[in-house]
């Protein structure tokens, strides 16, 4: 079986090479065609495909082709990775999504090669990228100071934004809220003045598809909801790692959210309504405001044009907080925990790192972002421009790109202009509005812990977070009183080991990001 597989891989490689190669040779990694095995399973459903046009093109240009060894039956990328590690048959390259912590755990134990020296000597383009972005290099490294994977590096600034039914505002003679007090007035007006005009008080002023987006309101009282790309994450303030669900601002913020919830300004089913909230509430013309992704949320203006005549759901600037600060807490992350690493059994580490480097060259980056010239895009004034049939297809552009092997989370640097070309007008207007002010705040990219630190973190953190979220929901739903329970809340956090976790977080942080 194994022989058969490698023979067929070899055959595939030969076929790829018998087709005439017109590209010049400067991207060649190796003169002898080289096939490397790759285990690449991501988003629980996509597996590296030897026949992707992007893969074939990369093989033509570099001389290196990849052969998938990941399971086509698995529907869990994490499971597939765990089984790979357990079986010990680490192939030449391992990649996928949400693997940073695993690379940084198993790398120092010998499963993956440290890449720092290889990059220094053989990967000028990767080196140039990290020289320009030293903080991203720090963030990607393991606790031992080595880099074990080449990350997928997103581009662009804003991800989620505040959206409001502008047509409702117009109808009620209101402006988009500029600060927290005006926000309160707008939501109250949505609640009481029947903006959808059906004579029923069925409006749901603020809703959230993912309930942690409700917590973005904390920012309005100078608190935070998260500092990372995920919900409930740590954040950094004045060089110190902190958690948003402690401290005076959190207390004030969560008390106010509870008050708003009680007054019916927030979806009563916010914790349970789930992924289809926007379809349900916008589709039935009852949802007024949310905090969600630019592109997809703007899309409802188009897709609901018939069902909800006059719908105008557009982005407005984040309201100013009580102290007058205006920030957008959410942003596109700079460093994904996705990417690829070199397995310890790889007999061609130099060729492999050169191959990784190819994706950071101009040609490689364009291939990873836009697909094939002449197929998906044409060069217009030196810039890739998607063809009309790609832009006007029924299938979303990024779905089309995935299908040919572009934009998959290999180690590469995304080019946001790929997305700009097919983002709809309303979203682009919103992004422009957000870019007109200085709203972005630094993102906490996480720490890599030593095994000892990790043990402390693992022992305490999950029960602390569970307790925090339990209390948070109880307070919002009104089954607990923030003021009365605040002291016991802090005491309980203390008992659960909060200080111990913060200590290892900060030790790890200082080691990783300190000078």
């Amino acid at each position, binding site marked *: 079986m194994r022989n058969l597989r490698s023979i067929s891989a070899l055959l595939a490689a030969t076929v790829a090479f018998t087709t005439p190669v017109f590209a010049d040779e400067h991207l060649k990694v190796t003169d002898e065609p080289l096939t490397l095995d790759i285990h690449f399973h991501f988003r629980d459903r996509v597996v590296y495909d030897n026949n992707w046009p992007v893969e074939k093109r990369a093989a033509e240009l570099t001389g290196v082709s990849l052969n998938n060894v990941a399971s086509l*039956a698995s529907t869990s990328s994490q499971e597939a990775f765990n089984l790979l590690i357990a079986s010990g048959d680490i192939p030449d390259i391992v990649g996928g999504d949400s693997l940073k912590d695993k690379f940084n755990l198993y790398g120092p134990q010998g499963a993956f090669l440290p890449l720092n020296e290889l990059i220094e000597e053989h990967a000028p383009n990767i080196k140039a990228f990290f020289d320009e972005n030293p903080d991203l290099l720090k963030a990607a490294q393991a606790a031992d100071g080595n880099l074990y994977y080449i990350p997928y590096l997103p581009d662009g600034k804003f991800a989620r934004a505040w959206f409001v039914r502008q047509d409702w505002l117009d109808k009620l003679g209101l402006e988009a809220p500029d600060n927290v007090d005006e926000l309160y007035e707008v939501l109250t007006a949505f609640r009481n003045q029947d903006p959808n005009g059906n004579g029923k008080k069925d409006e749901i002023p603020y809703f959230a598809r993912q309930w942690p987006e409700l917590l973005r309101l904390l920012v309005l009282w100078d608190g935070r909801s998260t500092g990372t790309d995920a919900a409930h994450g740590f954040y950094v303030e004045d060089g110190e790692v902190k958690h948003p669900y402690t401290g005076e601002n959190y207390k004030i913020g969560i008390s106010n959210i509870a008050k708003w919830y009680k007054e019916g300004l927030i979806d009563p089913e916010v914790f349970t309504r789930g992924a289809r909230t926007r379809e*349900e509430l916008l589709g039935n013309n009852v949802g007024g405001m949310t905090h969600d992704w630019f592109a997809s949320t703007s899309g409802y203006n188009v897709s609901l044009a018939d069902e909800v005549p006059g719908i105008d759901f557009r982005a407005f600037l984040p309201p100013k907080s009580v102290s007058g600060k205006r920030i957008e807490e959410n942003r596109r992350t700079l460093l994904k925990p996705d990417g690829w690493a070199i397995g310890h059994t790889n007999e061609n580490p130099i060729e492999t790192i050169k191959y990784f480097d190819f994706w950071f060259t101009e040609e490689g980056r364009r291939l990873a972002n836009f697909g094939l010239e002449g197929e998906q895009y044409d060069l217009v004034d030196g810039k890739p421009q998607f063809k009309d049939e790609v832009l006007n297809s029924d299938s979303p552009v990024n*779905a089309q790109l995935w299908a040919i092997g572009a934009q998959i989370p290999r180690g590469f640097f995304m080019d946001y202009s790929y997305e700009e070309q097919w983002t709809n007008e309303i979203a682009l207007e919103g992004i422009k509005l957000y870019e007109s002010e200085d709203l972005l705040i630094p993102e906490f990219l996480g720490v890599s812990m030593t095994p000892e630190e990790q043990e402390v973190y693992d022992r305490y953190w999950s029960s602390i977070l569970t307790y925090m979220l339990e209390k948070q929901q109880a307070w919002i739903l009104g089954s607990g009183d923030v003021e009365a329970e605040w002291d016991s809340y802090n005491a309980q956090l203390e008992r659960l080991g909060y200080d111990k976790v913060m200590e290892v977080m900060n030790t790890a942080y200082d080691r990783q990001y300190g000078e």
Partner: protein
Amino acid sequence: MTNLYSRGDRLFVIANMVLVGLFTISTLYPFLYILAVSFSSGFAVTSGQVFLYPVQLTLAAYEKVLSEPMFWTSYGNTFIYTFGGTLMSLLLIVPGAYALSRPQLIGRRFWNLFVAFTMWFNAGLIPFFLNMRDLGLLDSYFGIIIAFAVNGFNIILLRNFFESIPKSFEEAARMDGANEFQVLWKVFIPLSKPALATITLFCIVSRWNGYFWAMVLLRSEDKIPLQVYLRQTIIELTADDEFAVTLLNADYSFETVSAAIMICSIIPVLLIYPFVQKYFNKGILLGGVKE
């Protein structure tokens, strides 16, 4: 006749009826809901309009499901795993249970404990996976069929049933010169129809629903069973978030498509149940009763 029940009894009966009725509705409703969803439009479902009957009646979800070649491939595979697996299970479980029920088996107590032990303890995911790998059973039909052919519970259930068969039957057969196989084949099996039907049904249902291990042990797409395909489809269709699109314009959504797959996948099991049920009621009680 009219006064068969006293007033108190009547109240009791009515209360029972109401309770049982409510219970029936609560088990029937999910099924009806899935049926309604599968025939509704994607928009009607995602905007929360479907409760009991289809809204904006359409066959789009079924068209989507039935036009996928992978659906038929995986459906065929599920039949192979279900019937191949059930056959294999019976071939192994019946003689095993028979042997364990025989007093003359050497070390009978030990073997019984040995089998029962597996009901409480198992090796866990990774060791089992490694074991299968070392046996060369990854990514094969046979691997899936043989690996889950026997479980302790079914053996013990059948053993108890065999033990409850009066000794005189066996003695009579032996008088006529029957050997062990003939005793099993001609006496025990015909007497054990309810228990065998129960175990067959257990095997069929668990095979039919088998998802996790198929996902772990298989590698090629053309060997996956229906449940893995269902899962793949759901994951595929929930990706609209990444693709920054709304599914509102589609005639189908992932809810309607997965509902349609569920309906398609449940039909064979629904067809089997009525035929086995008469044995089933009897069998599950009998298995636990000793003489």
